[in-house]
């Protein structure tokens, strides 16, 4: 699309992240946790960011809302555009209008993410009051109870009077969800919201999330290490590794034809219930340190296909097909995949 043409508002993505770089000061040097990540999200779309611990996915989520600890910095060239606004240029009061109102966020551990000394009803009502200054306290409380009802908490009027430690893990996460959705945000960022929950509660929360998305029409950026969760929710899957996007594809395409060796490795590592007792496939090695990413391809030391080019040249995101990208030189030299594929199976 040429720059001179006006684009209709509906065609512009809701969220557009370009070259986001977030680093942390640590004792062992500068950790480049998010290292040039770009992606976009349309209204109503669900994107899953998948990766193992330490790949930068949480740092990415926190960067989008500027909720990083003081040791973190976002590099000047990074750009995050949301609803046509440049979030990186927002001042403190600009952020307050976005956080909790246009973008809701759900955190991993609802036990620690909820204030332990405030009634959950008040914690939900607080978002309403902050973003609706004229509202009467009673109305804000009633709204909080409605929201708790919406998230499927049984007996919401009574539960609203309770404190987080009096609720179960699943209910606490529903409260988090009520807080995040209180102002009907256009975007919900969910950072491993189901990781701390047991599997049946996890399924309930995911179903609820899908249901609420249909009702409220919001986009979801879902961060998880669980490919099963991604398969259940995602319109698009983005795989992160060592601070970078290594593969991005529509969900169906991703699960049918993953390209990057890291992505294929992750998918092979899923337990296969049709062959119980089989040993799980593993990806050898561990994620390299963010203070010292390897030269060339960051996955090459754990990759069965790696060859000289992988060390010499940092792979760009190759376009595999429409909407499918992979950061692997195999895209340029597909012949090399066959050679050792058998040895890792």
């Amino acid at each position, binding site marked *: 699309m040429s720059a001179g043409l006006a684009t209709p508002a509906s065609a512009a993505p809701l969220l557009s992240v370009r070259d986001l770089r977030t680093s942390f000061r640590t004792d062992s040097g500068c950790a480049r946790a998010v290292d040039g990540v770009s992606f976009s999200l349309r209204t109503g779309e669900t994107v899953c960011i998948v990766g193992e611990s330490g790949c930068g996915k949480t740092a990415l989520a*926190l960067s989008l*809302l500027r*909720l990083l*600890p003081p040791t973190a910095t976002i590099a000047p060239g990074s750009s995050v555009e949301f609803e046509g606004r440049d979030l990186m240029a927002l001042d*403190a*009061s600009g*952020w*307050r*209008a*976005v*956080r*909790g*109102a246009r973008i*809701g*966020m759900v*955190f991993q*551990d609802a036990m*620690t*993410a*909820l*204030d*332990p*000394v*405030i009634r959950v009803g008040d914690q939900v009502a*607080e*978002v309403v009051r*902050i*973003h609706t200054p004229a509202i009467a306290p009673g109305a804000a409380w009633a709204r909080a109870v409605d929201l708790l009802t919406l998230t499927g908490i049984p007996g919401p009027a009574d539960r609203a009077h309770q*404190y987080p*430690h009096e609720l179960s893990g699943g209910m606490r996460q529903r409260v*988090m969800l009520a*807080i*995040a959705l209180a102002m009907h945000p256009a975007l919900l960022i969910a950072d491993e919201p189901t990781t701390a929950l047991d599997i049946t509660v996890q399924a309930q929360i995911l179903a609820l999330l899908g249901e609420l998305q249909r009702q409220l029409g919001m986009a979801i950026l879902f961060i998880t290490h669980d490919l099963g969760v991604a398969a259940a929710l995602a319109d698009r899957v983005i795989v992160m590794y060592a601070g970078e996007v290594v593969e991005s594809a529509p969900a169906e395409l991703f699960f049918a034809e993953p390209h990057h060796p890291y992505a294929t490795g992750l998918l092979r590592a899923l337990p296969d219930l049709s062959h119980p007792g089989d040993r799980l496939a593993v990806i050898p090695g561990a994620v390299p340190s963010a203070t010292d990413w390897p030269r060339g391809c960051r996955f090459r030391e754990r990759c069965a296909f790696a060859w000289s080019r992988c060390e010499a040249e940092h792979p760009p995101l190759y376009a595999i097909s429409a909407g499918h990208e992979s950061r692997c030189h195999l895209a340029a030299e597909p012949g090399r995949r066959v050679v050792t594929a058998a040895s890792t199976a």
Partner: protein
Amino acid sequence: MTATFALIHLAPGDPFAGALDDPRVTQAVRDHWRHVYGFDRSLPDQYVRFVAGIARGELGYSIARQEPVRTVLARAIPNTLVLMGIALLLSFGLGIAIGVVQAMRHGSLTDRAIGAITLAGYSLPDFWLAQLAILAFAVWLPLFPAGGVVDPVMHPYLGPLAAALDRARHVVLPALTLTVLSAAAVARYQRSALLDVAHDDYLRTARAKGLSERQVMLRHALRNAAAPVITLFGLALPGFLGGQVFIEKVFAWPGLGALAVDAVATRDYAVVVAVAIVGSVLVAIGSLLADVLAALVDPRRRTGAIARPLPPVPLRV
């Protein structure tokens, strides 16, 4: 109570040491007075009579002052309560505010400058600061009276408003001295308590909701960081009694602290014990109040889910 009784009787001398140990007083006279007040009885016997008296609410008779201990206390307690109340309110109000400001600007020059000042305030000897205050604001710059509760000459002739003003002027220096000393301690506790919770997840949630830093601090951080300061408050209540001993003495403030100093000096057994009992009552009240406050602030304490943590550094209030 028993410990106080034992300790004061272990000290040499008795209430008549000053008046009767004069060589010109005959042994017969000494024995007579000791017999009248029961000091010739055996210690266990004295102890039983002492405990029985306490149980009946009889605090005894002040030999040095020649009046019932009850009367002595009734005169001293209101003075101490006034000074303690003002100083407690001011020092906790001021201390918490300073701690909040420091925590919000954690690591900045402001934080470090205030930290140096509170450390100094925390370390100053109270009697020295009290004398310095007198020197500065009563002698060099005679803004306030140097001591006493009211003007000894003029007070009876003042109208109600002027009399109140006279009292207020007298309380300023001792109250401010106490406030400076303990506000410094409170500020240090408050700051470190706030920094302890600064990285807690619920504060990040509060920011994600769209709260300003100020709202995050006042609505969420402060309440979660209240426990150590509440504990400090509970300990400060009886602590102020001890802390006031020298302050009251220096400012000639006729409260419990000054009373205790005089009573120990004159071996006025009954008064020493009575002040110690008041102190124990304050310990109990302080501890009860701290538990009630802690439970009000943190619902998890109501069910005993977590215990009241001890303050992080040794106390000196």
